[in-house]
């Protein structure tokens, strides 16, 4: 029995293992990117608050951090980016363009991936306080008051509302592995603001 004889039998499991590892690595890479980006974003956001300027997290980025969302009860904290393009969402939650800024009259909508940055959303309960720190250092507290599951194209979010409101949106259900048309939205209303 020679090595040459054994090769065909070795090759098929090896190829299979290689493909498996590449797939696994690709999936892990999405998480690694999401995690690494948040570290860089955290630094950029702190500098934004200090300088009052929009600071790009890395030189070739076409987006920049605009706010930090925290839910202290469950110890969650993420940095939100301007815009909700697929590229921005890979790095952090995105602020949807045509919606208001946090703390302004109107509705601020932030969206993120259910399996990375907004995974914590499933643990947020009605009544929890959601803290938003804006790029200019101003700080707003929202209280979660309702949640709903909607279709992506019929969100029912009224962009012309006269109140001070916040919506965090992500895909639904949380534990699904394929993407679908349903979205989970958590609605909150402003309860306090301070510097």
């Amino acid at each position, binding site marked *: *029995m*020679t*090595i040459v004889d*054994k090769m065909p*039998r*070795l090759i*098929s*499991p*090896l190829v*299979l*293992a*290689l*493909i*498996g*590892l590449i*797939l*696994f*690595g*690709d*999936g*892990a*890479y*999405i*998480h*690694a990117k*999401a995690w690494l980006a948040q570290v860089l974003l955290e630094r950029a956001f702190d500098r934004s608050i200090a300088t009052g300027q929009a600071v790009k997290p*890395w030189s*070739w*980025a*076409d987006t920049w951090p605009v706010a930090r969302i925290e839910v202290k009860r469950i110890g969650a904290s993420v940095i939100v980016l301007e815009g*909700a*393009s697929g590229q921005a*969402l890979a790095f952090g939650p*995105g602020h949807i*363009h045509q*919606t208001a800024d946090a703390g302004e009259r109107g509705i601020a909508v932030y*969206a*993120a*991936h*259910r*399996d*990375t940055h*907004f995974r914590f959303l499933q643990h947020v309960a009605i009544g929890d306080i959601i803290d938003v720190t804006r790029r200019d250092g101003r700080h707003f507290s929202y209280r979660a008051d309702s949640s709903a599951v*909607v279709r*992506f*194209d*019929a*969100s*029912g*979010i*009224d*962009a*012309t509302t006269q109140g001070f409101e916040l919506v965090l*949106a*992500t*895909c639904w259900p949380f534990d699904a*592995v*394929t*993407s679908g048309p349903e*979205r989970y939205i958590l609605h909150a209303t402003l309860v306090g603001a301070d510097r």
Partner: protein
Amino acid sequence: MDTYDTADGDEHPVLGRLIKLGLFLLAQGVAVMLVAFVALLVRFGTAWSATAEHASLLQPGEARSGSLLLKEDGAYTEAVRLGTDIEITVSGPTLRARVTQLFRNPTKDWVAATYVYPLAANGAVDTLKMVVGDHVIVGDIKERQQARVIYEQARSAGQKAALTEQERPNIFTNSVANIGPGETVLVQIEYQEPVHQTGDEYSLRVPLVVAPRYNPAPIVQSVDFRKDGSGWGAATSDPVPDRDRISPPVLDPARHAPVNPTSITVRLKAGFALGEVRSHHHNVKVESPDDTTRIVTLADGAFAADRDFELTWKPAAGMAPSVGLFREHVGDSDYLLAFVTPPGVEQATQKPLPREVVFVIDNSGSMGGTSIVQAKASLLYALGRLQPNDRFNVIRFDDTMDVLFPASVPADAAHVGEATSFVSDLQARGGTEMVPAMRAALADKISDSSMVRQVVFLTDGAIGNEQQLFEAITAMRGRSRVFMVGIGSAPNTHLMTRAAELGRGAFTHIGSVEQVEERMRGLFAKLENPAVTGLTARFSDAKADITPAIIPDVYRDEPLVLAARLDKLAGSLEIKGRVGDRPWSVTLPLQSAAEGMGLSKLWAKRKIGDAEVARAMREMTPEESDKAILALALDHQIVTRLTSLVAVDRTPSRPEGEPLKLSDLPINLPAGWDFEKVFGERPHLTPTQLRERHADARNQPSARQPKPAAPDTIRLPKTATSAELKMIAGLILIVLALILFVFNRRRRLLADAA
């Protein structure tokens, strides 16, 4: 035959093999992770630079049929790219512009491209050149249909061809056929235009983008009854029959980088020592080779064509010359261009007549963004300028409209306060149904002849049914005078000037919030001071064909501009009129006229304008005016509604059998516009559904409030990654591999044992 396999077998064969395999897989796993991380860095780079290529994305619904759209990443990529270079030479009273458009085809197909672009409304386009490789093909002026046929024949024969057509007096299209794969074709047009003058300020304006027009739905037929009272008439069904030709795809600036890089150079030879030279909307670099010459270039190089270029200049010291006279000899005729600024009458000597002013403000979606801010600021300024003995009213319109007071009211503090809060609450949304608003403004309900009646109309003019508006003004103007205030970065100048001309008023343009006060002060000087009326012009010796045929009234600080064709350059020109109630006249000896350039074209262009006006006023039948226009256009080689320039390269270039793809080049949204407001909410109302609501604060306060928008819900992005899926699939494959491996081992061991 003695392999290490059997040597291993002496100790722990299975275990040893498993350890080896495990190590191998681990090493491979580390390698894959390394590759993944390298890929991470590479993909960061490429992913971001890829956004620059997305510049050309557009939605299929916005392109016309026949567009070349390549599907890529779920969005569509427009193939042909374009760059524009504009070179302007100002010589005294006229300017000549050369616009070079570069069409580049980066695809592997043969394409034909169409580009819609604006030009100055009173510019005469007379030259078309196409540059392919190293040879230049000069275009000929032809009747429009004939030019089309020539172009289409060349196109199907595989010859390179270029066609310049006029869609509106200020909107043109260039079509270029048979651009080969990887090829670049230059298309160059040239036009002649008079320099604009107000007070001591001279200006030129280069429109650079066609603002999206609101084209009313063709649901209601408008009926034209014959004038002879026979009761017969014709129904015209579509208010904008050529809507397709003036609606190129528009890019959403939030999603795409701007396209159509444009560079501008202006050689300014004013003919007098220059003072301030200023560009209002672009950063420029100004060089001064001598006192009377300036060279103006863009400071930041090429920019995206999304706003008009405006340049103004003033003489070095004191007032601008109040008279200018220029001549040109073409063929066997002399052409003359005269500028005369009548003297202003001091306010003290003239008791101002009380006025009735109707303000009309456009709050349609196209005014969204900075335009509505400028319009509101202008209107609030105007309300503040009203005198207590004036009367006024305010009308706002989109595809609905509100008239603030049932009839004009005295401009006392209470009424002005009410109007101020009404204007402050306006928001930009909806379509642009301008005609009903103009009709309401012209409806003279008080008919008090002791008052001067003025309509001040604030709009960007972004409509496609200009002709209907002109007809409304002509039919209903009565004793009212219409003053147009053009708002925004790319207003429809043709609509503004023609409407002001038909309404015997004036036109002013406001391009930024900073200009509001200065320009509105100028407008009020015109509103509050008596116009120079009853103007006539007469040549002592020469036989002359003067245009404009009926000289319009001239407002304060505006020059009277006359063009004429003369049989001989002799004698003098006498202009007479009345300033307020005092007679005024001036005599200009023709011998002192200076040499000018392209005056014959300006004369012809102005004559064509006269014919169009006469047609709108029903003084000429459409057939008569078309005939006059065609003769002038062919004589003077000008592109008009009825004539086009066409250039054909006789050597065929596209091989027979190769298909030709069509491509409509997208344009930018004008700066300061709000894409959502223009394209986000399509107008749902048709003209039949228009309601005229006479809002009155006492009993209908709700009608005063802007309507809440239909809740346009927000689309949520896709927020799930494939990470989990990939990781699970990957794990399954690894486990499968292990099982297969162990299974193979087992079988081999069993075989060995046997």
